[in-house]
């Protein structure tokens, strides 16, 4: 099957390798295998696979990871734009099943 990959060079994920203590939590929680940890140091393998779910940032005990967390949902973005707010997912439609 063809691989499912979203747009290139858009994600906000950043890793400060100097802060990393090699606990491997990021590699554990990432649903898309974005991280690998070698020699007690995390590395981003493929940034374009990141969906900005925020799991890595949330579980990094030394705050070495930053990402603009959010749901990649067009309806939420459009609803937010119409209401003049941040992306608003009320989950009454397609997602969250």
């Amino acid at each position: 099957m063809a691989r499912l990959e979203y747009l290139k060079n858009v994600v906000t994920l950043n890793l400060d390798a100097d802060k990393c203590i090699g606990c491997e939590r990021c590699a554990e929680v990432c649903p898309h295998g974005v991280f690998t940890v070698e020699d007690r140091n995390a590395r981003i393998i493929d940034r374009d696979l990141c969906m900005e779910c925020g799991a890595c940032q949330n579980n990094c005990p030394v705050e070495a990871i930053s990402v603009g967390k959010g749901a990649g949902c067009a309806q939420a973005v459009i609803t937010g734009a119409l209401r003049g707010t941040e992306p608003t997912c009320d989950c009454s439609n397609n997602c969250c099943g």
Partner: protein
Amino acid sequence: MAKEAIREISFITRNGRRIPKVPAELNWADTFGRWKARWAIGRMKYAVEPGIYAVGNPDADSGVYVSANYKMSFDCLRSSLAGRDGWILVLDTKGINVWCAAGKGTFGTQELARRIEETGLSEFVRHRTLVVPQLGAPGVSAHQLKAQSGFSVVYGPVRAQDLPAFLDAGMRATEQMRRVHFPIEDRIVLIPVELVSWGKYVAPVAAVFFFLAGLNPKGYSGALAISAGTQNVLLLLAGFLAAAVFGPVLLPWLPGRSFSVKGLWIGMAMLVLGGLLLGRRIDVLGDSFSVAAWVLMVPALTSFVALNFTGASTYTSLSGVKREVRIAVPIQLACAALGIALWLVGLFV
């Protein structure tokens, strides 16, 4: 929110607390409820009461498994614990599944710490370990929870069905268990919700096309509404159905990374197919104005419907969707508006 009652419930008592015990086997009512939720029937109210539940005959050393109070999440978890003894700690996620709720933070560190406190969990389990689904990690911070409640988090597999293998391996997940994929069966189960939720908007629009089609330079003709109107409604529905069904099914094979581009191909394919089927009889659509109108409206519609499937997909980022919405939606709107204008002009020439 009204909560779903769980049938076949009994109670056990631990430390003076009455704890509901649920079977690991799902019955016909659970299966029917799942089917209804897939068709968006009462889906936003498909919830169970938050709190602690027992599966099997758990004791102070049995594992604690955390879930959301969307009943489908809860049912997936308890059925994967068949033949085991355990505690299920259900968080109040307002009836939303683990992953979406974690994104919003309702499946989160605060709620988890509060629920541990409220259920008195530390009084009837001796250990201090929670198995949290990996997809709860966007809301849960393991180190913060440890500091707040003393409980350590072990992230379980993405899919509850992998839980038995995870537990049998001594709480170790394989790389495969840690990855979210979006295989065809997962995409197909989302189609009914797509159809129902978009159908609400498509049906009134179709009705408007139907009635307006009766307008003509001489006034209004009911017969024209029935003949031309029906054709227009069929075109609209065909575009919508194609996008809502083939978008999810063909997702990996539709060219392009952008969902609106993927949807555009569906619309283009429909135009080519329509052209081949109708050939020189294309005038059955009416005048060249309405032909041009549908050439603009169909791709705009299929592209928009596909773009909105991003929310149900498992791999799109907010930054990517924002970029796509910024570029694609104005084009889709312009095509649709121009198409509608041409179509209206076509009624009177």
